[in-house]
């Protein structure tokens, strides 16, 4: 079990300037896995992905092979594969780099996954705000099509596939898989009631698998190198490797690919530590929707199970680290302003609740909170969690209670002293410049 060190796999060839082209990708072994896969029985591929233990890299960590296995076969309906490339979770910045640097790994994974679940149509739904990533993926699809890797009777296998690259239009909620489906059907992106799950009734009410970009980018490597190889990385329950994106007050923020089970302390070391030799005040393992941790948690392994045991989640595996200059009151308020803006409005607890939490938090940020409201807000959050269709409501109810657990005194101080008076905002900037206030 390899759980430390850096293991560039998806990122191994990112320094080769033509990796994004078909020729560049083929030069490093690209599309070998596809050739092998098309000679396999589709069920054998599903079995292989099940055996690998690959878990979804979009945040929830659901076993990928199991998801594929839920698709009913021989049901006479068209099947669809939809790639969730709507990366919008605050702190998450690993799918866009994968698409910019190595789009063919995604495309190859899409073709293999579609073959496995017997889909003849796949869609890559990319958020609209990243035109250059959309260009790279659209170009990769076009090159693959011209080379006969997409289209009719791929490599003489009898398998045919069309891939459509689809641009979103600015809505965080469309990262939620059923909202994404509504959006892809040309509607407002609002979550659906589950069940039925997409594997049974997804896109156009047909069986649909929705997978994250990084999840799909893993597929060619697993098919090419095998389950035993894959399971050498990570832990029993969290096998494999992860494209970690480390951001915040670290010396060298960036992409670090490492086995699951690596500790935050080791990753932080590779990233050069906290700037100025400073210390971590709080950090979040994978997006603003997972509860924050502090310096005392730096030695925990970054796995789905260890993060859950610590009361948080691995989420997108994109740690954000904040140093001692940061006001946790301000940080949490800003996240809630985001959830308020992005709530789709379908469920009352989320729509109204994000409005009320944000309103109270903004009072704290400006030093006008009342002592009673410190606890009222906990109650308010508990009224939202678990009471909406999708996880956005739960996510909105997460940051405040998590922050209060570690930094109660800061919220209590915010009943009289504003966040900016407690912490000079200029000190948190990553450039040396006087703020324009």
């Amino acid at each position, binding site marked *: 079990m*390899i759980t430390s*060190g*850096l*293991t*560039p796999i998806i*990122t*191994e060839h*990112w320094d080769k300037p033509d990796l*994004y082209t078909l020729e560049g990708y083929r030069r490093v072994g690209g599309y070998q896995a596809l050739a092998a896969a098309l000679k396999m029985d589709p069920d054998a591929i599903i079995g292989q992905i099940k055996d690998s233990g690959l878990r979804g890299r979009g945040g929830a960590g659901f076993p990928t092979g199991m998801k594929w296995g839920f698709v009913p076969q021989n049901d006479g309906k*068209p099947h669809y594969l939809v790639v969730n490339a709507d990366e919008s*979770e605050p702190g998450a*910045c690993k799918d866009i*780099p994968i698409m910019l640097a190595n789009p063919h790994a995604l495309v190859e994974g899409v073709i293999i996954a579609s073959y496995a679940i017997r889909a003849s149509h796949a869609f890559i739904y990319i*958020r*609209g*705000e*990243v*035109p*250059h990533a959309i*260009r*790279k993926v*659209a*170009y990769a699809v076009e090159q693959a099509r011209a080379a006969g890797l997409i289209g009719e009777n791929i490599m003489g296998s009898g398998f045919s596939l069309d891939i*459509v*690259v*689809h*641009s*979103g*239009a600015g809505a*965080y909620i469309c990262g939620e898989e059923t909202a994404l489906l509504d959006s892809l059907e*040309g*509607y*407002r*992106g609002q979550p659906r009631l589950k069940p039925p799950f997409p594997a049974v009734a997804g896109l156009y009410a047909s069986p649909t698998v929705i997978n994250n970009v990084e999840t799909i980018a893993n597929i060619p490597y697993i098919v*090419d*190198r*095998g*389950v035993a*190889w894959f399971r050498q*990385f990570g832990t029993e329950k969290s096998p494999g490797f992860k494209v970690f994106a*480390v*951001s*915040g007050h670290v010396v*060298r*923020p960036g*992409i*670090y690919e*490492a086995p699951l089970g690596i500790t935050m302390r080791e990753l932080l070391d590779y990233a050069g530590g906290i700037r100025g030799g400073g210390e971590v005040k709080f950090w979040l393992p994978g997006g603003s929707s997972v509860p924050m941790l502090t310096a005392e948690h730096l030695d925990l392994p970054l796995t789905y199970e260890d993060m859950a045991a610590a009361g948080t989640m691995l989420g997108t595996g994109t740690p*954000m680290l*904040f140093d001692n200059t940061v006001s946790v009151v301000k940080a949490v308020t*800003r*996240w809630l302003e*985001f959830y308020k803006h992005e709530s789709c409005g379908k469920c009352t607890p989320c729509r109204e609740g994000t409005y009320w939490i944000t309103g109270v938090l903004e009072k704290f940020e400006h030093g006008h909170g009342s002592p009673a409201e410190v606890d009222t807000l906990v109650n308010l959050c508990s009224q939202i969690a678990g009471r909406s269709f999708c996880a956005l409501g739960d996510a909105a109810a997460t940051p405040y209670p998590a922050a209060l657990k570690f930094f109660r005194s800061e919220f209590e101080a915010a009943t009289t002293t504003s966040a900016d008076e407690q912490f000079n*905002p200029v000190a*948190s900037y*990553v450039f040396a*410049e006087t*703020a*324009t*206030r």
Partner: protein
Amino acid sequence: MTISEATRDQMRDLAARYPKSRSALLPMLHLVQSVDNEVTADGINACAEVLGITSAEVTAVASFYTMYKRKPVGKHHVGVCTNTLCGLLGGDAVYAALSKRLGIGNNERSADGEFWLERIECQAACTHAPVMTVDWEFMDDVTPASAVDVVDRLARGEQVQSTRGPVIRDFEATEHTLAYPLDGLVNEGEAVDAKMLAGLRVAQERGMSAASVPAGGAS
């Protein structure tokens, strides 16, 4: 502006790409913005006609998504991420400097019609904070001074290169790319930078590699 027959043809072409034509609505609305600078009533009607749905149904979709605007955006869309990480690491100061330079606030257009300013949400580039976008192309790692400089150069008609993308064109050109991404610019500019290679470089320096792990059989 009236939607031309050529644009309607493109709408029909987009609609034909999907098993069900309505799926093309989001790209079609981007196409409307590429010719009308905003989602106009004419654009809504054209989408409705092509898809055989009502203009009310199209309006309901257009009003849901943040990237669609119901008033003219102008030549350049300027976004500054002010979500927690970018905002606290300096995005707030970047936004303030741009707001002062342009004399406008959030979701407003400058009097000369050149710039639209917007506080945007997380742009999936937190490793490059604070992040700014111009016509949705990345301008990574900005400071208040460098952000104002970008706007100044654009205002003078000078060339501005995206940090991970092509030379900046204008808002309408990007909107066209979102409908038709094969715009010939895929090779332009850099897409992979030092921050995206940070871990790979550390691994290379320290002699760490996953390649040394033997491949197992396809069990």
